[in-house]
Each structure stands twice: as C-alpha cells, then as structure tokens.
C-alpha cells in the first residue's frame, strides 16, 4: 500500500512537471537589443587596426609589400624554423613536416604538408607571419616571411631555386591541392540516410570482438610509457542473437511483432484489390477489415454477405485467430459458399504474418 501511495505521488509530481514544461513556463528572457546600440566602446584608431588586422585573404588582400627569394629563405629557415621542421622541411620528431607527401592523400595515414594539402598560399604567409616561429611569434620581418615562404615552396618542388616571392607575383603561384576540398556535404550524404527509426531487436545474428584496444593503460599511475595490450581479438566472447532457451520468448517481443507486421503488410498486397483496412477504410468487393479480429462473422455494416456468412453471423461465430488461419489457408473449404475468389495462403508464416498485420489495426 505504501509502494502504491509512493507511486501515485511520483506520478503526480511527474504530471505537474510535464504540465509546467508543456506550458513553456520559463521566465527566461533573451538579452534586449536596441537598434541604435548602447554607445559603449570607442572608435578604433587606424594605427590600432593596422597593428592587429594582419590576416591575409586567399585572394591576397591584406599582404604587405615586400619580397624574398629561395636562397635567402633557406638561410632564414635554417635559423628560425629548422630546429622543429628540419633543414629540408621534413619535420623533426612529432613536429609538422612541411614538404612532400604528394599523392599520399588517398593512402593510409596521408602526409598533409604545405605542398600536398594546403589549398592557399595566403594561409602559409599568414601563419608564418603571425604565429611562427613557435615561441617567437610575430618577430619576422615581412621580407623574411616572403623568403621563408619561397623556400617552403621550393622544398615542395613547386618553384625553382631562383624563385623570388613578392606581393606582385603572389597570386600567380598555383597550389597543388587547391581543388582538393568540397564544402561540408554531410546533410546530403549522411543525414538523409541516418535519420531513420533505429533497430531495437534482432539487429544482428551474432556479435564478436574484431579488435581490442591497442593500449591497455594509457597513463600509468607511476608514470612511464603507455602500456600496450596483449589480448587478441579472437580471445573475446561471441554473442549470439537469441540463446536457445530464450527462443520462444523471443517471438513474444514487441519488436519482432513489428517485423511480423511488416511481413504481413507485404502479404496483404494480395488482398488489397478487394479489402481495405485502417483509417477511412471502406467496403469494396470485400468488407473492410479494420478491427476484424474477434468480430462476429458477417457483421460489417453495409456489406452484402453470402448466405454462408449470413448463417455464420446468426450462429455467432467469431473471427478468432484459429478461424482466420483456417479460412486464409483454404477459404472455399473452410466457408463453403463464400464469394471470396481467393485461393488461399500456402505458407503458415504468411498466414501468421497477415493475421498480425490485421490485428495491428484493432487498436
């Protein structure tokens, strides 16, 4: 009794909460925004904007005047960049490799360098100018940046050794992967296919482990390197869909009913030329079948039945599942005199499926 009282109290609280939610009973209001602003802040001065607004756009806007050649760039690169990126921009340790990697993008572990991957030269200039060298950002002169970028292009075989890069020829440099990018197309390619009702039961026959974690302990308590995992994929368990002893219970599950109903819908195609079912169903050459299970034979309003069905109606025979199954298997044998010209369903599974389908409209 206490449990029942508690349960009642909980559902009362939940109902009240749901009501508050449904009524949108939130007092939260967005920040106001007058059209003419608040008059806060001050105008930025031209020299302030010039100091901070140094980004360079893909079309070259934002570049300062200047120039630098490959030869100078090699010197500057050795001084400022090579400790991390290597003398030939090949990368040191985990630091980024800047050169090569052409034709690796479609391979396992692509090598994404300025040469193989970066679509815009403006990005290289902007990044070197603004964020490099690591730990000494914004210390390079504009000409140094032109020279270093020229050397990076040279190390990627994109220009010759006598090349000089300047604000004048900047736009003429062609980047290898300029056309290698497409705008996010997940909505068309993925979302349409993945916005579906997910499977709940019997989604796979068996499941086994195909791969186990490469590492066992990523950050050991007492320090030191990550610990690798010795276990192999084959040593794991195999899960099977329906364990033998549960096989019967499995057919009772609601989701397998759904599958059965789906099968039944396909079987019902054979019936559709004469029978309608569901909301707004009407009598055709056969009576409407909405709510047929458990109904007394021959009692759909407005349908003109054969004598055989009229007789069954007076006897009070009901459409039990057994009656339905027998009728569907061989209509003329089960109900001699029926006007239904259908030959019958040979497959018991089809009969069970279509009965499930008919029952699904009983609600």
């Amino acid at each position, binding site marked *: 009794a206490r449990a029942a009282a508690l349960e009642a109290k909980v559902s009362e609280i939940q109902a009240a909460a749901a009501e508050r939610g449904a009524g949108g009973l939130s007092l939260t209001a*967005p920040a106001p*925004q007058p059209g003419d602003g608040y008059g806060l802040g001050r105008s930025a001065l031209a020299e302030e904007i010039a100091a901070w607004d140094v980004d360079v756009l893909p079309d070259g806007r934002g570049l300062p005047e200047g120039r630098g050649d490959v030869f100078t760039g090699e010197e500057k690169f050795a001084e400022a960049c090579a400790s991390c990126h290597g003398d030939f921009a090949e990368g040191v340790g985990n630091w980024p490799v800047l050169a090569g990697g052409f034709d690796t993008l479609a391979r396992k572990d692509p090598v994404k360098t300025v040469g193989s991957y970066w679509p815009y030269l403006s990005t290289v200039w902007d990044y070197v100018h603004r964020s490099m060298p690591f730990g000494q950002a914004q210390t390079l002169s504009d000409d140094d940046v032109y020279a270093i970028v020229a050397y990076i292009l040279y190390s990627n075989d994109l220009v010759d050794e006598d090349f000089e890069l300047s604000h004048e020829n900047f736009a003429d440099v062609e980047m290898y992967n300029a056309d290698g*990018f497409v*705008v996010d197309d997940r909505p068309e390619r993925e979302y349409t296919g993945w916005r579906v009702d997910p499977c709940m039961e*019997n989604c*796979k026959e068996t499941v086994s*482990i195909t791969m186990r*974690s490469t590492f066992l302990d990523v950050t050991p308590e007492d320090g030191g390197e990550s610990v690798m995992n010795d276990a192999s994929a084959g040593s794991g368990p195999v899960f099977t869909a329906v364990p033998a002893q549960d096989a019967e219970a499995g057919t009772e599950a609601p989701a397998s009913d759904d599958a059965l109903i789906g099968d039944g819908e396909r079987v019902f195609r054979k019936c559709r030329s004469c029978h309608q079912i569901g909301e707004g169903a009407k009598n055709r050459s056969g009576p409407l079948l909405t709510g047929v299970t458990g109904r007394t034979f021959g009692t759909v309003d407005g349908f003109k039945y054969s004598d055989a069905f009229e007789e069954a109606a007076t006897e009070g025979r009901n459409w039990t599942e057994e009656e339905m199954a027998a009728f569907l298997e061989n209509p003329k044998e089960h109900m001699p005199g029926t006007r239904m010209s259908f030959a019958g369903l040979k497959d018991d599974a089809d009969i069970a499926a279509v009965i499930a389908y008919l029952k699904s409209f009983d609600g």
Partner: protein
Amino acid sequence: AGGLAGAAGANGADPLITETQDWAIYTGAGVDETPYGLPIRFEEDVVRRNVEWLTASPISSINFTPIHALDGTITPQGCAFERHHSGAIELRKEDYRLMINGLVATPLVFDYTDIERFPRENHVYFCECAANTGMEWAGAQLNGVQFTHGMIHNMEYTGVPLRTLLNEAGLGAAGDLADKWVYVEGADASSNGRSIPMEKALDDVLVAFKANGEALRMEHGYPVRLVVPGWEGNMWVKWLRRIEVTDMAVGSREETSKYTDVYEDGTARKWTWVMDAKSVITSPSPQSPVRHGHGPMVISGLAWSGHGQITRVDVSRDGGMSWETARLGKQGDSKALTRFYLDTTWSGEEMLLQSRAMDETGYVQPTKTQLREQRGENSVYHNNCIQTWYVNAEGVAENVEVS
C-alpha cells in the same frame, strides 16, 4: 535482500558503525583554512590527463576531461579539458582589449568593463574538440573513455550575444549579410583565427566571460572567450581580441590545413563545423569498471548533439543485437550535454556495452562501419561513432571493436 549485494553485508557487526570513529570525536577543518576549495584528497585521481606521445610539445597540445568519474552534466572548470596552440596565457582584465573592425560602420575597441555593461545571457553548452575520438578512426586505440571521449566539457556560460556587439559597430556597412563572414582571433601567440558565417554569428554565438558562475579559467580563455554552440571547439576562440567582418572566409591555418576531413579518395571536406549527435557510456568503462557484486547496476553516460536537443538514447548490452531505451537525466539547453541512465541488474554476464543517441532532427548516431563506409579511416576529425566497451565476468571493461 538489497543488503546482500552491498558492502554492508559483511560478516558480523561493522566496526565502522559499532566503534566510535576519529571524525566523530575530533574537530575538522575551520572555515578559514581553504578560501578557495579543491576536491577532497580522496578524489585526487579525478584530474585532466594528457598523453605525452600524442603531440610534439605540451604547449601545443591537449588534455582530457575525466568524464569516467563525473556525473550529471556540468563539467567543473578545474578538470575541463584544455587545448592550446601556443600555451595558456595570463591576460589581466585591465590589459584586455576587444576590437571589432572590417565591414562595419564604426570600428570599435572595448575594454573589459564595457563587455560587462551589455545585456548578457546564461546558457549551458557543450564544447567538443573536432578531434575527440579521432584516435579511434583506424581502430580501438586508447583504453579509457577519458582518452577516447574526454575532449569535451559542458558549462553554464554568461556572456553577451555576439550580435549585440556587431550591432554596436553597425552592420549596415556590410550590405547583404548572406555572404558575409566574421573572422575571430585570439590574443595568444598562436592567434588562432577562424571564420564563422554571419548567419551563425547572428544566431547563438556568445562573447563569454563567466563559466559555471565564476570567471573563466586561464586555460579556457580568461578573461573573454567565444562560445559557438554546437560547433567544433577550435572555433571557440580563447582570449578573444578581434572580430572582423569580412566578405570571404579567411582560410586560416586552422580551417584549411587543420580541421578539414580527408576522405578515402583523398578529397577533403571543409567547413565541417557542426558536431553531430554522439553518446558514450562513461560507467562502466575501462577506467570505471564494475566494482560491486551482482544485482542492481546503473549504466550511465553522456549524449550530445550540435544540432539541438537529445531526444533519446538507447543502450545495448550485446554489441548492438538488441537495444533498450535509457532514462534521460535533467537536460540543459539545446546543444548541451544530456546524462542518461539505464537502471538494470547484472549477474556477472559478459557484456558488449554500446550507447546510441538520437537528436531532435531524427539523426541516429552511426556505427563505426557506417562512418567508415562514408569517410574511410583518415578523417581525424568528427568521429561520432558508437563506442563499444567489453565488460568481462569480473567487471573489467576494455575498449574494443565488434562485428
């Protein structure tokens, strides 16, 4: 009956109850001992961790939120993951300046006090690095949900809508806003800059200065950072110093050479900003094994979607053959973490645990197979696959992949 499975079911009387304990005799800490508190020392393992060999230097690197040890949805600032490109900087409020320039009527400079004078809002949002779960593209790698899914945090932000600041500078000069962009950059040495389409900038982007009620931590961009709800964490520029209205995407290093997704044929997707629906079981998981006996068990995890609200999470214990719908905990805003629970029982059977999130657009979190069919294994970013934990009869959990 419940007592049988619990620790209190020990033989004989429990001395923790029958004997008077020290803490019941002597006094504890005074209110003047810890002006700003830390978690009790028994929780000292609940910390951010980094993986040394992942990056060249811890200054340009990432660490991971200990999501295996948290519950609810709000991430405490002190253990919320960090990602820096040139280290976390100390920038005083007094030294803080924010510039708005480019295609605006009046380029403006604000100081910190100006920011706090604009009408502000509070919202809870998740911030997920685009590379979260990125190590798992080529297979099960790291044994721990902190490492596979810990590049995420979820906080209540206080901030000024970006549209308010843009309006202050006047967007009339920009003409048609449809093809305009906002370029945002930070004050640190990496000056990490990203381009955001104007439509998003005018929608729900916040210029935030408080998180979970207190000032931002240094490592999260003190004193002011950008909050770009539902979109990849790299765009949430920290130490925000400049907002420029432009007529094209800048194509900065962080939006071309990085944070673009390479597919099997070598072409790459760019402008993949939104973080798709995703979920993961945080307990049990490799760092949070089943430590109790058979009987009642709570399976718990987190779900989120950059497209809006989480509407449902299903849990499978058999590697995806069958699913049960989990119970959702209290939800935050749209684009915030949602906690889910499956209240169940465990009899020591081996499990292949998975969770599967659905969001308000009807999107269903994909399997690893589905993702790889679309993108191959070289994408690095945006891996929102269904994760599997193998839990053995002892309750030990391991990161695995299944057929």
